[in-house]
């Protein structure tokens, strides 16, 4: 693994720029960067831990044992799992199409895949209610059949899939483009079935792209609030994810409970971030 980027071994850092009077310049830059990061990032995170343990360890353990917390944790895990599986399978499929199609079709597809990154979560919630709510396009007919989408698990899963859709596709597509179709064509000539080609040739090449995309998807799905807030219905112990549970505890005057759940989420985020760091494609890493 390269220690610095670009392979320029000899040049000392900051030699040409910002290092004229090397000491002062470098420290000024560092100070600005660290100060900003501390203010915007580190201290807020520290607050979560501080507030959670404000009354000591006991209440935190109680909060972790609370049945609404446990259910929210389970619900979040289930939703995230379904989301990751769906977005991985379809993400790879879409990436394959993206890799092969150039021109207008490819551009439209690419824009569609990137769209969820630019849509506000509340718009996602509104859109889902308009389609799947009782007065929505499909919701009425489904309700008559007894199928509940909005205010139940399916609706929340749909919201989650929407907002985390782009990641796997966008990570895998460039990799597919890079490796090209040569090897797959060769395999086809030699009589390999599509499945064999995929398993032996395509998959190994895109493995780390998928891994990184999966981590991004997981992190994004875990942390979603706005979209699920609209489609959840706030049924305690039934349709509250971990993020909604944080809000619920807050409103029940349970500050320790709220910050404990927030701490769990922050910890999961930290885990995701570390994994992101380790799986990030080589050229993006310092």
């Amino acid at each position, binding site marked *: 693994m390269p220690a*610095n*980027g670009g392979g320029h071994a000899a*040049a000392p*850092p*900051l*030699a*040409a*720029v910002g*290092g*004229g009077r090397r000491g002062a310049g470098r420290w000024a*830059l560092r100070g600005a960067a660290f100060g*900003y*990061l501390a203010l*915007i990032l580190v*201290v*807020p*995170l520290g*607050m979560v831990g501080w507030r959670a343990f404000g009354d000591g360890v006991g209440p935190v353990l109680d909060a972790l044992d609370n049945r609404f917390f446990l259910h929210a944790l389970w619900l979040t895990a289930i939703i995230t799992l379904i989301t990751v599986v769906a977005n991985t399978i*379809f993400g790879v499929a*879409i990436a394959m*199409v993206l*890799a092969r199609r150039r021109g207008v079709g490819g551009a439209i*597809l690419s*824009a*569609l*895949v990137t*769209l969820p990154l*630019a*849509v*506000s*979560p*509340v*718009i*996602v919630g*509104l*859109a889902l*209610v*308009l*389609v799947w709510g009782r007065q929505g396009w499909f919701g009425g007919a489904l309700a008559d059949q007894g199928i509940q989408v909005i205010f139940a698990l399916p609706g929340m899963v749909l919201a989650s899939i929407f907002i985390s859709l782009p990641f796997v596709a*966008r990570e895998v597509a460039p990799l597919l483009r890079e490796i090209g*179709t040569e090897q797959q*064509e060769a395999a*086809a*000539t030699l009589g390999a079935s599509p499945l064999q*080609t995929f398993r032996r040739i395509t998959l190994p090449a895109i493995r780390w792209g998928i891994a990184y995309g999966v981590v991004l998807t997981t992190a*994004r799905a*875990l*942390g979603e*609030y*706005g979209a699920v807030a*609209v489609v959840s219905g706030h049924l305690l112990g039934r349709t509250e994810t971990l*993020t909604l549970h*944080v809000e619920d505890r807050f409103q029940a005057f349970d500050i320790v409970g709220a910050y404990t759940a*927030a701490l769990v*989420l922050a910890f999961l985020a*930290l885990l*995701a*971030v570390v994994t992101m*760091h380790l799986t990030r494609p080589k050229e993006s890493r*310092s």
Partner: protein
Amino acid sequence: MSGRLAALRPGLGPLRPRGFGGPLTLGLGTCFLSLIVLIPLAAVIWRSQSDGADTFWAAISSPRAVSALQLTVGISLAVALINTVMGILIAWVLVRDRFPGRRLVDALIDMPFALPTIVAGLTMIALYGPRSPLGVDVAYTRAGIALALLFVTLPFVVRAVQPVLMELDREVEDAAASLGAKPRTIFLRVILPNLRPAVLTGVGLAFSRALGEFGSVVLIAGNVPFKTELSSVLIFGHIESGNPAGAAAVSVVLLAISLVVLVGLSIGERMGGDRAR
């Protein structure tokens, strides 16, 4: 490439790989995208005008909606610009400097992406609200909104600029230095122009994100119309107060702005050739 292989099998024409990537995959992928993305968004667009053009226009031109939009776009732009400057600076320190814990700091940059927005909002209120241990109270003000948005858009410019900074050819900088150019000149004339496509991508993503942000601002903003009400909160208010047409109308405006930014990003990506997250 396929031509070469085709030469190996004369008479059979260009070789198209069977299976994945072909029409079936395209069909499945399109179905998935339609169900998940296209149809819901189409429903929003349809609903915004299904009560008539007058209702649509009234909803988006009401003083309250206009004020919310101005506030949203204004703050998002300001935040994107601040994070551009700070993002370049942080990326610089991360790439060009060496200090203990650098990898940890590098990893932490992604925290705002992974941290749930509601948690970010809670911490912002706890830290910069009325009971702030730092004595800073900007909750329920525009400064508070900006602070929350700075948090969530932090990673975009940093991550967009980092790979480009790493690939930069130092020799040009060294040459300029040896010719007597001052560090500031080198930065402005040599480095910055190379960063521009990446910076624009980062700014576009940061702006898009800030435009629609909800979870982290809804707690700290105060949501008072004309003072601290963002478009995303206005949309939420319309949804919850039984005005889906109004909600859809304001949504369409936000979507349109996002679309413009997206298209710009797309074009920029093709020109810059780098992969944006």
